């Protein structure tokens, strides 16, 4: 009798732990940079080294969040204009992506390698939302996860402002690089 109970509870433990072996990967020091240089003589690009991102390995649920004022430009005046004239960063301090990696099951988190991934979800910039699909690479190295992606952001879908499409490119070329813990 006692052996049965013990066996039962142990197997229950294993069963649930197998089910619940769900890990949340997270980082607060991811990097997103973008280049939106249009016809303007000066490069319009910035980098943000404080990207906050989390990812659940089993469900593929993923969140990427950035503070707009943490985007650093080489030219402080450009940074002011970015915050003031385009991003309204006092009103909308953050931009984020909330979605799922649709093919997360193809990523073997236990095995070193590089896996192509697709993320689908809602991108919110300047208070405006859009369903978008991004492709990237999940890299497992010594059990650590890194996600890299190059993607384009159609600025007119999010931001109102003059010069978009002329001096400022209509599409910002962006790069994401997140090393998760």
């Amino acid at each position, binding site marked *: 009798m*006692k052996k049965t*109970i*013990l066996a039962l*509870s*142990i197997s*229950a*433990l294993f069963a*649930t*732990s197998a*089910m*619940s072996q*769900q890990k*949340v990967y997270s980082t607060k020091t991811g990097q997103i*940079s973008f280049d939106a240089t249009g016809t*303007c003589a*000066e490069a319009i*690009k*910035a*980098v943000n*080294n404080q990207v*906050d991102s*989390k*990812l*659940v390995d089993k*469900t593929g*649920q*993923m*969140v990427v*969040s950035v*503070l707009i*004022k943490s985007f*650093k*430009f*080489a*030219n*402080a*005046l*450009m*940074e*002011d*204009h970015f*915050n*003031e*004239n385009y991003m309204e960063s*006092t009103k909308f*301090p*953050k931009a*984020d992506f*909330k979605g799922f990696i649709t093919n997360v099951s193809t990523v073997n988190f236990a095995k070193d390698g590089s896996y192509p991934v697709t993320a689908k979800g809602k991108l919110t910039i300047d208070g405006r939302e859009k369903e978008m699909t991004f492709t990237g690479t999940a890299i497992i190295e010594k059990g650590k996860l890194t996600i890299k992606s190059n993607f384009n952001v159609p600025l007119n879908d999010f931001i109102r*402002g*003059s*010069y978009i499409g002329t*001096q400022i490119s209509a599409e910002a070329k962006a790069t994401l690089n997140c090393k998760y813990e």
Partner: protein
Amino acid sequence: MVFKQKLFTLLVLVVASAKIATAQDVDLFKSQDEQDKKDKLNSTDYITATFKTTRMVNGQSIENVGEGIMDVKVSHRFGTISQGAYGLWGLDAATMRIGLDYGITNRLMVGVGRTNGGLFDGFAKYRLLRQSTGKVNMPVSVSLAGGTIWRTQKDPSLNHYSDRFNYSGQILIARKFNDFLSLQVVPTIIHYNSVANSTLSNDYYSVGIGGRLRLTKRVNLTAEYYPQFTKREGTTNSFSVGFDIETGGHVFQFHFTNSTGMDDRSFIEETTDKWNSAKGVHFGFNIARVFKIVEPKAVKM
């Protein structure tokens, strides 16, 4: 013995059920929303772009140029508009200043300039307090500015070389009320090393006020008034009104003013033309263009 076993079983079950409980409900979307709310309370949002550029019209504004940025300023103040067509509404004559401003850090800037007539000026401006909301709630921005004016013109009436220097000291207190309205108050002292006679004071005080109204994202209406506490003989208070127009790296300031001087001493203490009946009104402009000289350390691609 039986009790021990039961306890063990219970323990195993508790651990197992606890595992199930934690396995459920990992919703990153929800936790992110909560995080955003928390961040809003715990972070400090520093107010930027109180004014469009580092000058209101003639005087300093609370703004600084950024670290590693050179700001080239070309300013003109033309003759009085009342000259009419004969003098092309004052455009025939102009006082000109060329200035170079540089941001050593985001809070400290220095600048030099030359105005025709052998006038050099130099200044430093330091941002002491930054207006902010959130965790640190600071209602105003405060900067300190100090300047020197050096007259190089030949003047046989001067006894000492030091007579050629004037100094100015300012405390700038500014507040951006919202996206449309910013105001600043500027207590100022102007020091003359040399005055015409011994009954005159060497120090003069003024409290300047200035403001901007945003008309569109790129155009501001600005105004600036510097009343003198002790009026110097033959002078009047400086008042200017104008527009700031920003186009990317340029800021154009077009204005009407009764001052032709462009350094602190000249426009605050030595304005002679009067606004009444528009007889003493001059048209003028400042053009500012910024250049990146040194890449700030924070920007590494």
